[in-house]
């Protein structure tokens, strides 16, 4: 007897789990294969998730979700060699339920999410790495793992930034360094009372801090710090291309050590114990670097498709992973109704994404990487940061407003004139 699944999902990160959860909720036979010991085991993220954009896609999920702290305080620090400027923003709107963003530890969240998907009926098998795809009559018809063939009407590639599955399906070509950043992160354990004290947090509140400038030696990227319940996530993200080209030949672990040793940071992590160190690649090529999203019998979601972006002040990928996983599932459900899993039918996935915040954000921020490469943006106008902060951080349920109107609202004529050069580029964001 040959078992055939409605869908096989490769990768149990947020995209894959989102797809599995959605498909299983509709009663489809879905198998998710994850190479890690369990979902979340090795998934690296900075640690902040915005819930608004995906709240309605998973209505039952949020109440008990094991988030860490809701973000009630935002800070941006511009670091020069020997000094830094910090802007803190703690609007009341950040403290109202439903909270717009949370700090999150993936090892905990993904495992819990996997359990929820299993409860809906998804079959999840861990410690199974997909090695290849099965082709039948020119279409993708399943996967090969550990020499074993498993068949399905459709395969959803959710295997993260270096997606082998999308590559084998011919939907993506090997990456170009300029489309990627590398991130390192440590989880540093501290007593909750110490965290609350150091960051001036009330019960349950969390802080998000971003650092730019000297931390990356002027390279495109930045540092981040999120407070969890009993730990701090501290990390650094740097463009791979700039890292390869940097003349000082400085390497990321060294940069990270220096970052940790900055007096501003050292004071925040003092007495903490590093519980986890990880490094990971982040897609940040934006719209232009997205893979093809579908083929005959296959869809691509999450980082695998390129759905993460770094707009200089923050990395976002988790909501896009959750949303693209959701839409991929919806597309499969439509295809099953039709009994047709061809590229033509599955193209509805792209249509759904286009009318959602996902593609609209990506189109809006098409030029972001290139503009924000210019360090002057942070050095010349630090005061600008405070003004645009609230709007910059607000992530609405719908697509995010373009950066330009946000910026313009806060600028007088005098500055504008001086900025004209940079602004021409900023306007493209």
């Amino acid at each position: 007897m040959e078992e055939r699944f409605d869908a096989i999902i490769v990768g149990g990160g947020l995209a894959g789990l989102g797809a599995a959860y959605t498909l299983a909720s509709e009663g489809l036979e879905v198998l998710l294969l994850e190479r890690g010991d369990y979902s979340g085991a090795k998934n690296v993220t900075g640690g902040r998730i915005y819930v608004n954009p995906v709240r309605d896609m998973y209505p039952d999920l949020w109440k008990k979700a094991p988030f860490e702290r809701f973000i009630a305080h935002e800070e941006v620090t511009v670091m020069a060699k020997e000094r830094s400027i910090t802007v803190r923003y703690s609007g009341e709107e950040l403290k109202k339920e439903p909270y717009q963003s949370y700090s999150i530890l993936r090892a905990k969240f993904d495992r819990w999410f996997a359990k929820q998907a299993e409860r809906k009926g998804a079959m999840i098998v861990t410690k199974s790495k997909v090695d290849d795809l099965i082709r039948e009559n020119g279409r993708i018809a399943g996967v090969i793992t550990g020499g074993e063939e498993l068949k399905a009407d459709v395969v959803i590639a959710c295997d993260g930034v270096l997606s082998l599955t999308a590559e084998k399906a011919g939907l993506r070509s090997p990456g170009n360094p300029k489309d990627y950043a590398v991130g390192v992160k440590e989880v540093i354990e501290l007593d909750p009372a110490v965290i609350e004290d150091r960051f001036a947090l009330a019960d349950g509140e969390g802080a998000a801090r971003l650092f730019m400038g000297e931390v990356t030696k002027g390279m495109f990227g930045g540092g981040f710090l999120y407070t969890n319940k009993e730990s701090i996530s501290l990390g650094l993200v740097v463009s791979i291309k700039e890292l390869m080209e940097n003349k000082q030949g400085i390497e990321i672990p060294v940069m990270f050590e220096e970052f940790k040793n900055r007096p501003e940071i050292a004071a925040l992590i003092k007495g903490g114990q590093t519980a986890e160190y990880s490094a990971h690649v982040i897609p940040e090529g934006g719209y232009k670097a997205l893979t093809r999203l579908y083929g005959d019998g296959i869809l691509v979601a999450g980082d695998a498709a390129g759905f993460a972006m770094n707009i200089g002040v923050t990395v976002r990928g988790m909501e896009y992973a959750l949303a693209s996983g959701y839409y991929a599932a919806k597309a499969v459900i439509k295809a099953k109704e039709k009994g047709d899993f061809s590229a033509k039918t599955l193209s509805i996935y792209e249509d759904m994404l286009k009318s959602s915040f996902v593609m609209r954000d990506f189109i809006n921020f098409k030029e972001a990487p290139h503009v924000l490469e210019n360090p002057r943006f942070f050095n010349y106008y630090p005061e600008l940061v405070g003004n645009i902060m609230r709007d910059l951080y607000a992530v609405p349920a719908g697509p995010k407003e373009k950066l330009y109107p946000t910026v313009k609202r806060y600028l007088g004529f005098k500055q504008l004139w001086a900025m004209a050069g940079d602004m021409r580029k900023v306007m493209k964001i």
Partner: protein
Amino acid sequence: MNVVVAMKQIPDLQQIRIKNRQPVFDDVPLTFGSIDKNALEAGVNLKENGLADKVIVLSAGNEDLEDTIKEALAAGADEAFLILGDDLNGAESSVIAQVLTAGIKQIEDVGLILFGEGSGDNYSGQVGSRVAEILGWPQVGYAGAVKVEGNKAVVTRVLEDAEEVVEVSLPAVITVVSGINEARIPSVTQILKAGKKPKEIVEEDELDEINKDALITTVSNLAPESDRKRVVVKSTAELVDKLKSENMI
């Protein structure tokens, strides 16, 4: 004849973190001890060679066991006999031995009980011996090979300085070393089928009197302090220099 394999659910040791010298178990997934997996493989091999009818995994632990057991069922066990109790995870050997023995008495036609030489976390190597004593069966420890011939088992036991080949009559208790075999990694299909294999679940308090007197008191359980330099060197030459500078070579 059926073969019973005793397997202990333990926290995945690779994922235990140490905080202030204390082990932290939060969110650490559960699995079976690796030598117990060798014991299972040995049982499954006997069955595959037509020397046993069924392989039944016997395990005592908390309710997570219902999930963990899938691993063993996928790796070739036919059935599971689970004894659940909140305080059974990490209970002491004397209690576990009584609980397991009570379970064995409910399983039909047991010819052989296989144990790991030591559990993955405690590694005290007592449970198998204690069960053998309660049952009054012969035991052979540290088996590197097991053959069944009629109502006898021929076991090669691996000692520090010799290999000893012995013959015992069945039923018997045998504990195995990790070198006895390489435990199979179940395929996805086997994992999916594991959910459907029969499981007998007994609550601990349904068993006849278990004497739960604590025979052992733990004063402390701390990770040793360590402070290592962790200097990253770039080349062999640099490594040699460093070691020379410490007068080590």
